[in-house]
C-alpha cells in the first residue's frame, strides 16, 4: 500500500473507533447495547457478530454500488444485511448453544441495528469496497468497545466477576439491579456523562488546533 493510502486507511478505521464511536458519540444501536451487556463475554460476542455483519454487508453493498438503482437501494441493503445476520445466527448456533441462548433474539435483531443500515447508506454506497470495509471494521470495533465497557461495569457491579472470574471475596454483595434493565440505562447514562465531560475538557484544552 502506498504511503498516501496507508494513513488514510488508518484514519478510516480510527474514525469509527473513537471520534464517531457509535455507542458513545452517535448513540446508535441502543437496543442490543443495553440488552446483552450483562456480562463482558456476551458483550464481546455481540460486538464481534455485529462487526462481521457490518463488514460483510458494507463490502457487498460497496461492490454493488454502481449496479443498484437509487429507488430500491434501501430494500437491497436490508436484504443483504438480513442475509449475513442469518448466516451469523447459524454460525453462533454451531459454535456454542450456551452463547446462543444468552444472546437470544438480539442476534436476529442485528438486522435492524441502525448502525449497519446507516453506514451502508452513508458510506459504503459511495466508496470503494476496501475503504468501506475498513471504515465498517472501525465502526464495529467502536461498537464492540462500547459494549465491552458497558458489559464490564455491569458485570463487575452486578455479579462481582469479570469474564467469569470472581474479583471480590465471598462477602461481596452484588448490586443486582445493574444486571436488570434499569441498571443498563443508568450505566450507559453514566458512561455518556463521562464521555461528554471528557470531551468538553479536551475542547477547553485544545481550542484552536484540530487536524
Amino acid at each position, binding site marked *: 500500500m502506498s504511503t498516501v493510502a496507508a494513513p488514510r486507511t488508518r484514519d478510516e478505521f480510527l474514525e469509527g473507533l473513537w471520534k464517531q464511536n457509535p455507542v458513545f458519540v452517535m*448513540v*446508535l*444501536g*441502543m*437496543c*442490543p447495547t*443495553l*440488552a446483552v451487556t450483562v456480562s463482558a463475554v456476551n458483550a464481546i460476542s455481540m460486538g464481534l457478530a455485529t462487526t462481521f455483519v457490518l463488514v460483510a454487508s458494507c463490502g457487498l453493498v460497496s461492490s454493488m454500488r454502481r449496479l443498484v438503482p437509487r429507488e430500491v437501494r*434501501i*430494500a437491497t441493503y*436490508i*436484504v443483504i444485511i*438480513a*442475509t449475513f*445476520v*442469518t448466516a451469523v*445466527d*447459524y454460525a453462533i448456533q454451531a459454535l456454542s448453544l450456551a452463547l446462543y441462548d444468552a444472546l437470544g*433474539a438480539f442476534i*436476529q*435483531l442485528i*438486522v*435492524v*441495528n*441502525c448502525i449497519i*443500515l446507516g453506514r451502508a447508506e452513508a458510506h459504503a454506497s459511495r466508496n470503494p469496497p476496501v475503504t468501506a470495509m475498513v471504515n465498517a471494521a472501525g465502526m464495529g470495533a467502536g461498537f464492540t468497545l462500547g459494549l465491552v465497557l458497558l458489559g464490564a461495569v455491569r458485570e463487575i457491579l452486578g455479579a462481582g466477576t469479570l469474564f467469569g472470574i470472581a474479583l471480590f471475596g465471598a462477602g461481596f454483595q452484588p448490586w443486582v*439491579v445493574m444486571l*436488570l*434493565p*434499569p*441498571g*443498563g*440505562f*443508568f450505566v*450507559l*447514562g*453514566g458512561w*455518556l*456523562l463521562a464521555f*461528554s*465531560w471528557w470531551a*468538553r475538557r479536551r475542547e477547553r484544552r485544545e481550542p484552536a488546533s484540530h487536524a
Partner: protein
Amino acid sequence: MHESAFQVFVGALLANNFVLAMFLGLCPFLGVSNRLETAFPMGIATTFVMLVASLCAFGLNLLLTAFHLEFLRLIAYIVIIASAVQLVEMVLKKHSPALFRALGIYLPLITTNCAVLGVALFQTAREYDFVQSVTFSLGGGAGFTLALVLMASVRERLQLSDVPSVAQGSALALMLAGILSLSFMGFAGLGG
C-alpha cells in the same frame, strides 16, 4: 404457552414493557421523546405497524414451516415489515399530510425499529397462537406509546429546569429511562 390473551396484553404493556424492560424500540424512544405532540402520534403509528407485522409474521411463519423454509424467516419478516411501513407512509401521505410532515424522517425509520421486528421474533419464539399474537402486538405497541408519552412529558418539563450542560441530551434521557424502568419493575407479576 398457556397464557391468556389478557395476561399477554398486560404483560407486554406493563410488566414486560417493550421499551423499559425488553429494550426494544430504544432509538425512537430516545430520539422522538422530547415533545409530547410528536410522541403520541409516533406511538400510534408504531403500534399500527406492529399489529400489521404481527399478523403477517404469523401467516408467514405458518407458510415457511409448512415448506421447511425456516432459514428464510428473518429475511421474510424484514421484507414484510419494510413493505408495511411503505404502505403506512403512502396512506398517511394521502389522508393526513400534516401528520406525515410532522413525523418526517421518523416514519421510514419505523422499519429499523427493533420493537416491530421484535414483535415478530418473540411471538414466533414463544409459539403464540393467533389471538395471543394480536394481543401481544397491541399490548407491546400500547406499552411503547405509554413509555414514549411518559418520557416526553418529563423531558418537556425538564427543558425548563437547570440541568448541568454536561448531562444534557442523551445522558439525561438515559438516566430518566432508568428511573422509569425501575418504577415499571413494580408491575412484576401483574396479570398472573
